[in-house]
């Protein structure tokens, strides 16, 4: 085991800032990327639904 206690783990032998800034940005970017792609899917499907409904209405009128 590398660490005696949690504070030793977070300190990373004095290099905590560099290590956590690296792993932190990776985590942040991956989370944002997944959320953005999922949000886009939702928006696209929502838009398509409204488009289909609008078309159905137009057909009804005709």
């Amino acid at each position, binding site marked *: *085991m*590398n*660490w005696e206690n949690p504070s030793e*783990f977070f300190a*990373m*032998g*004095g*290099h905590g800032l*560099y*290590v956590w*800034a*690296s*792993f932190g*940005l*990776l985590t942040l*970017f*991956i989370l944002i*990327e*997944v959320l953005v*792609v*999922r949000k*886009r*899917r939702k928006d*696209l*499907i929502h*838009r*398509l639904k409204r*488009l*289909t409904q609008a078309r159905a209405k137009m057909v009804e009128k005709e």
Partner: protein
Amino acid sequence: MTSKQNEKKSNSWLKFSSTRNFYPLAGKMTPWFMGLAIALMLVGLYMTFFVVPPDYQQGNSYRIMYIHVPAAWMSMLIYLLMALYAGIYFVLNVKLADMMAGGLAVTGAIFTVIALWTGSMWGKPTWGAWWVWDARLTSELLLLFLYLGYISLRAAIDDPNRAAKASGLLALVGVVNVPIIYFSVTWWNTLHQGASITTNKTSMATEMFVTLLVMVFAFWMYTIAIVLMRVRNEIIERERDTSWLVEELGKEK
């Protein structure tokens, strides 16, 4: 069955190059790749912090390597793949190939930023500098600009076919930068250290090598999953006027 469907059946090897067949297949594969990515990432992070010992010279800052190296590899491999798909688009004129290229670009750019950022975070305690204009770092920065140029070019052109051609050309021209990045540490005398892993021997202990490998696979699985998700979005966007898509979306709900 219509004649169009018959035609599709006859050339089965091209089957998944049509968006219609690709869309549901990609949807089925995505959760598996994402699941694998999460599992591998957790194992990789555990090994990074709790299994591998600190470096005898650099202490604990070298643990950044376990994300820096995979991110840097991915940044180059994704670019090669993007250029390959751009090439396929030009030769076979398959729009799915262009969608794949476009879907890869954002993830490639993200991994490039991560490679540069983690390199900076590792460089400061190791070299005493956040950044140096050395061949490896400069060519990796150029890679980021190539990705950003590619992404903005696609976004700037409304017509999908013209966007595909213009951005595809940029992707193909920019590919010369990838071998420059890769061989920069051997071609020039740089501050950046040489390759940790080469084909004939490994300058690493087995557990370190395995940890790095797990992380590389985690990044690969993640890339496949997120790119499939993004390409599916692109298909919804571009095929919104087709009835098969409405049917497909109805099935998914």
